[in-house]
C-alpha cells in the first residue's frame, strides 16, 4: 500500500494522485499544494512525510476575535504589532522548524517566527492590522500545525525564566579558573625564598596574588554558594541535619580560614579548593536539573478546557464568551469533539459523550434531551445545545480539584538518600573534628584550631553531594531516551522504594488504539460484507470507525441509500439489498441477552445475522509484566469500568490479584490513602483525569500515554504506552541506581579518610586539598555515569 507523501500514513486503496504524488486525503493534498505554490517544498526535502493532516477547525477559534482574550494570550501587543507564543504539539522534526520559521512566505504580515524545539513552541510576531490572531491560527491549522490553546494559557501569568543557576555556575567557574591560575605559583612553591629555589619577583607580589584570589572568591561564597547556606539554615531551623549542613560549614570554614591565613600571612589559603568545591557542586545541581520542557507534570482541568464557548443569547444569536463568564441558565453550543465545560442539561435531541477522561469508561454514553450532562466529557455528535446548571468553578469536575491532595506538595516530606546519609555524616565529621581538636589542645595547642578547620574542610562532602545528582540525573536522561519521562530525580529514589503497584484498567493496561472484535452469529456472505464495509465507511461513530478498520478491504461502492439514526445505528442499501448496523433493538433483534460488553449488531434485509462483540485489547506483555512484578510487589487493579471483563482479566493476571470495578475517582484516591496508612509505598499507574487524585496521592504516580504530547493528568512520570512491558525493568533499574549511589558514597568516603589523615595529623597543605577535592569529585562522577549506563543496558 502506498504511503501518503505528506503525512506518511497509509493511503486507502484509492489514493489521491496529485502532481505525481499520492496522498491519503484531500487535507494532505491541500497542504502540499499550499507549500508547493508558496515555494516551501523544501519542507519535503528535509524530512520525508513529516506533515500532519489538517483537522476540521470550523468555528473552533472564533473566540480569538475577542479583545480581552487576545490581550491575555499575546506576549506583546502595541496595537499594530503583536507577539504570541504558541504550543504546537506536532512539532517533531527539522522540517517543522523550517516551515514554521518561514511563515512569512505564506503571509507577508508575519514578520518573524522562531521555533523553540524542546518546548514545541513557536514565537510569532506579526502585524495585527493585516493578519488577525484568528487568521494566523487558522493559517497554521490549515498547514497541519494546529496550536493547542487551552484555559491554562489564558490563566497563566507571564512566566519569568529562572536562570540564576546558570549565572551561579558561570560565576563559580569563572572564579575557579582564575583562582587556580593565580595560585599556580603557590602550588610549585615558586614564591618562597631564594634559598629554596623560589623566584624573587613572585615572592614580592605574593600578597597581591592572594588578595586577588580573595576578591574572586567573594561572589562565589556570597552569591553562587548562597543556596547551600539557605538550605542548611532551613534544615537546622526545622531540626534536620541535611547534606547541606556539612557543605555550608565546609564553605564557611574554608573562606574564614583562608582569609585569616592571608591576613596573618601564614599561608596561601584554600581559595582554589573553595571555588572548585562550589563549582563542582553547582555542576551537579545543573546536571540534575533535566527537565522535559515540552511535557507538563502539573496539569489540572485547565489544560483540558477551552478558553471560550459559544453562547446562544436571548436574540438566538451566537456569541463567544469567556469560560469563566458562563452563568447558570445560559444556553451554550458545544461543537463536535469539544469538551463540555460545566454541568448542565442537554437541550438537543440526542448526543454521545465520551467521558473517558473523567471516568475511565471507554465507550461513549448516549444522552437524550433533558438528561443531565457533566463537565469534562467530550461531545461526539455534531453541534448540540445545553443549558448550564452550574458555573465552571462549581462543576463536578472542578470540585475534584479542590481536594486537598492537589494543594500540598507531597514530595517535600520525602527524605532523599543523600539527606539521610548527610545526617550521619555530619555527626561523624563533627565528632572527629572535636576529638582531634581536643587531642591537639593537650599536645600542641597552637595547632588545635588549624586541625579543627582542616577536618571540616577536608570532610566537606563534595563527592557525596555529587554522587546522587550525577547518578540520578544520568538515569533520568537514559529513561527519557527510552521514553519514560520523570518529573525529577527524586522520583527515581521513590520508584526504587515502592512495594505496591496499583493499576487503572481502561487506557492503562488496555489500549485505546485498536480494539478487537469477534463475530458471533450466522456467517455473512461476500456481498453482505462488502455492503457492510461500505455502509460503515460513511459513519463517523467511533465503533463504526474501528469496525471499519478491522474488516478486510473492499471495493468502494456507492450506496443507493444511507441513513444514520442517531444513537441507534446506520442503514445502507444498494441493489435491492439493505443492511442495518447498530444496537440490538435497531436491527430488530429481541433475542440476545443484555451484553456487558459492547457489541454491534447486524441484520441484512431485515434478517438478523449476528453481532461483532468488542473486547478491550490488552497491551502487549501485560501478563508478563504482572507475573514479573508479582514476585516483589503487591498488585491490584482498580477500574472505573463495569465488571464485564472480569473473567478475562483474571486469566491474564497472576492468581489472587485483587480487581476492583466501578470505582469512582474519589474511591481510587481513598484506596491509595488507605494503603499508605498501612505504611505501603504505592505506585499508581493510570491514564485519565479519573486517576488524577490517585496519581497525586500515591508515592509515585505514573501516567501512561499513547501520545506524550497530548493530555496526561498531573503525575510524577509519563510512560510512553509502547514501553509498558518494560515497566518492571524501570523499577529494577531504579533500585540498582540507588545501589550505585551507595557505592559512590563509599568511594568518596575513601578519599575523605585519606584527607582526614592529613587533617587530623595537622599536615593539610593547600595543594593536598586542591588535588583531593577535584580528584574525588571526578572519580565519583565518572563512576556514577559509567555504572548507570551499564545497568540501563537491559532496558530496550
Amino acid at each position, binding site marked *: 500500500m502506498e504511503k501518503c507523501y505528506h503525512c506518511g500514513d497509509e493511503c486507502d486503496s484509492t489514493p489521491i494522485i496529485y502532481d505525481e504524488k499520492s496522498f491519503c486525503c484531500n487535507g494532505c493534498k491541500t497542504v502540499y499544494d499550499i507549500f508547493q505554490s508558496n*515555494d516551501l517544498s523544501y519542507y519535503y526535502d528535509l524530512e520525508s512525510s513529516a506533515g500532519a493532516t489538517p483537522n476540521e477547525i470550523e468555528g473552533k477559534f472564533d473566540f480569538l476575535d475577542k479583545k480581552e482574550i487576545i490581550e491575555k494570550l499575546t506576549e506583546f501587543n502595541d496595537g499594530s504589532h503583536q507577539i504570541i507564543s504558541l504550543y504546537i504539539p506536532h512539532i517533531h522534526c527539522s522540517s517543522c*522548524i523550517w516551515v514554521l520559521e518561514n511563515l512569512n512566505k505564506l503571509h507577508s504580515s508575519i514578520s518573524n517566527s522562531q*521555533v523553540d524545539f524542546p518546548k514545541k513552541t513557536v514565537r510569532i510576531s506579526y502585524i495585527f492590522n493585516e493578519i488577525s490572531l484568528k487568521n494566523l491560527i487558522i493559517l497554521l491549522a490549515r498547514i497541519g500545525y494546529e496550536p493547542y490553546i487551552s484555559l491554562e494559557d489564558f490563566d497563566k501569568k507571564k512566566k519569568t525564566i529562572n*536562570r540564576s543557576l546558570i*549565572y551561579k555556575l*558561570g560565576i563559580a567557574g*569563572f572564579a575557579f579558573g582564575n583562582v587556580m591560575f593565580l595560585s599556580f605559583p603557590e602550588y610549585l612553591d615558586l614564591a618562597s625564598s631564594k634559598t629554596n629555589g623560589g623566584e624573587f619577583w613572585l615572592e614580592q*607580589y605574593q600578597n*597581591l596574588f592572594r588578595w*586577588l584570589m580573595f576578591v574572586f572568591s567573594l561572589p562565589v561564597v556570597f552569591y553562587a554558594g548562597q543556596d547551600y547556606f539557605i538550605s542548611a539554615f532551613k534544615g537546622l531551623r526545622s531540626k534536620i541535619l541535611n547534606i547541606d549542613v556539612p557543605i555550608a560549614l565546609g564553605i564557611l570554614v574554608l573562606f574564614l580560614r583562608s582569609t585569616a591565613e592571608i591576613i596573618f600571612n601564614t599561608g596561601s589559603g584554600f581559595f582554589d579548593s573553595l571555588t572548585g568545591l562550589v563549582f563542582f557542586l553547582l555542576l551537579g545541581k545543573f546536571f540534575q536539573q533535566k527537565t522535559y520542557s515540552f511535557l507538563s507534570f502539573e496539569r489540572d482541568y485547565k489544560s483540558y478546557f477551552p478558553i471560550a464557548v459559544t453562547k446562544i443569547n436571548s436574540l438566538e444569536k451566537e456569541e463567544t464568551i469567556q469560560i469563566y463568564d458562563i452563568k447558570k441558565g445560559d444556553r451554550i453550543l458545544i461543537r463536535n469533539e469539544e469538551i463540555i465545560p460545566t454541568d448542565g442539561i442537554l437541550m438537543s435531541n440526542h448526543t454521545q459523550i465520551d467521558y473517558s477522561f473523567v471516568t475511565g469508561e471507554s465507550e461513549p454514553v448516549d444522552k437524550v434531551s433533558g438528561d443531565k450532562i457533566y463537565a469534562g466529557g467530550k461531545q461526539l455528535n455534531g453541534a448540540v445545545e445545553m443549558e448550564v446548571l452550574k458555573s465552571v468553578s462549581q462543576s463536578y469536575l472542578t470540585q475534584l480539584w479542590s481536594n486537598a491532595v492537589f494543594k500540598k506538595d507531597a514530595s517535600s516530606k520525602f527524605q532523599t538518600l543523600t539527606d539521610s546519609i548527610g545526617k550521619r555524616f555530619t555527626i561523624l565529621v563533627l565528632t572527629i573534628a572535636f576529638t582531634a581538636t581536643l587531642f591537639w589542645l593537650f599536645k600542641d595547642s597552637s595547632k588545635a584550631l588549624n586541625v579543627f578547620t582542616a577536618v571540616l574542610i577536608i570532610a566537606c562532602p563534595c563527592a557525596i553531594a555529587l554522587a546522587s545528582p550525577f547518578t540520578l540525573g544520568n538515569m533520568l536522561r537514559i529513561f527519557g531516551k527510552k521514553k519514560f519521562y520523570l518529573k525529577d530525580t527524586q522520583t527515581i529514589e521513590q520508584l526504587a522504594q515502592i512495594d505496591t503497584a496499583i493499576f487503572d484498567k481502561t487506557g492503562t493496561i488496555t489500549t485505546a488504539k485498536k480494539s478487537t472484535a469477534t463475530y458471533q452469529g450466522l456467517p455473512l456472505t461476500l456481498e453482505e460484507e462488502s455492503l457492510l464495509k461500505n455502509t460503515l465507511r460513511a459513519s463517523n461513530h467511533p465503533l463504526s470507525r474501528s469496525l471499519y478498520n478491522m474488516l478486510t478491504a473492499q471495493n468502494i461502492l456507492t450506496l443507493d441509500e444511507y441513513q444514520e439514526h442517531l444513537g441507534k445505528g446506520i442503514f445502507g442499501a444498494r441493489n435491492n439489498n439493505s443492511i442495518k448496523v447498530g444496537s440490538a433493538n435497531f436491527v430488530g433483534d429481541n433475542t440476545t441477552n443484555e451484553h456487558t460488553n459492547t457489541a454491534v449488531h447486524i441484520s441484512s434485509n431485515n434478517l438478523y445475522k449476528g453481532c461483532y462483540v468488542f473486547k478491550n485489547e490488552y497491551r502487549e506483555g501485560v501478563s508478563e509484566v504482572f507475573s514479573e512484578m508479582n514476585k516483589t510487589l503487591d498488585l491490584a487493579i482498580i477500574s472505573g469500568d463495569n465488571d464485564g471483563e472480569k473473567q478475562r482479566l483474571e486469566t491474564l493476571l497472576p492468581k489472587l490479584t485483587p480487581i476492583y470495578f466501578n470505582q469512582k475517582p474519589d474511591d481510587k484516591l481513598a484506596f491509595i490513602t488507605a494503603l499508605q496508612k498501612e505504611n505501603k509505598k504505592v505506585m499508581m499507574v493510570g491514564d485519565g483525569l479519573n486517576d488524577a487524585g490517585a496519581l497525586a496521592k500515591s508515592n509515585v504516580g505514573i501516567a501512561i500515554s499513547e501520545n506524550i504530547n497530548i493530555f496526561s493528568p498531573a503525575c510524577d512520570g509519563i510512560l510512553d504506552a509502547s514501553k509498558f512491558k518494560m515497566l518492571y525493568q524501570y523499577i529494577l533499574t531504579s533500585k540498582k541506581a540507588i545501589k550505585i549511589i551507595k557505592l559512590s558514597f563509599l568511594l568518596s568516603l575513601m578519599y575523605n579518610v585519606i584527607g582526614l589523615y592529613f587533617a587530623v595529623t595537622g599536615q593539610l597543605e593547600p595543594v593536598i586539598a586542591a588535588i583531593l577535592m577535584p580528584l574525588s569529585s571526578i572519580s565519583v562522577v565518572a563512576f556514577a555515569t559509567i555504572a548507570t549506563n551499564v545497568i540501563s543496558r537491559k532496558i530496550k
Partner: protein
Amino acid sequence: MSVIYVLLTISIIVAVVFFIAFIISVKSGQYDDSYTPSVRMLFEDELVIEKSPSLEKNINPNKSTKLKE
C-alpha cells in the same frame, strides 16, 4: 610600575570581558533553547537565498522558482 601589574590588569580585564559576555548571553535567552539553533544552522543558506525576494514582494506562487537547484 612593575610590568606584573600591567599583565595582571590585562589578564583580569580579558577574563572579566568574557565573563560579562557570558552574562549578557544568558540574559538575552541564548541558553534557554540549546537545541533548535543546532538544527536551524543547517538550513541557513537556503534561508538567505529565498528570504530576500519574499521580503520585497508579497506572495506570488510563480516567483523565485529559479532560485531552487
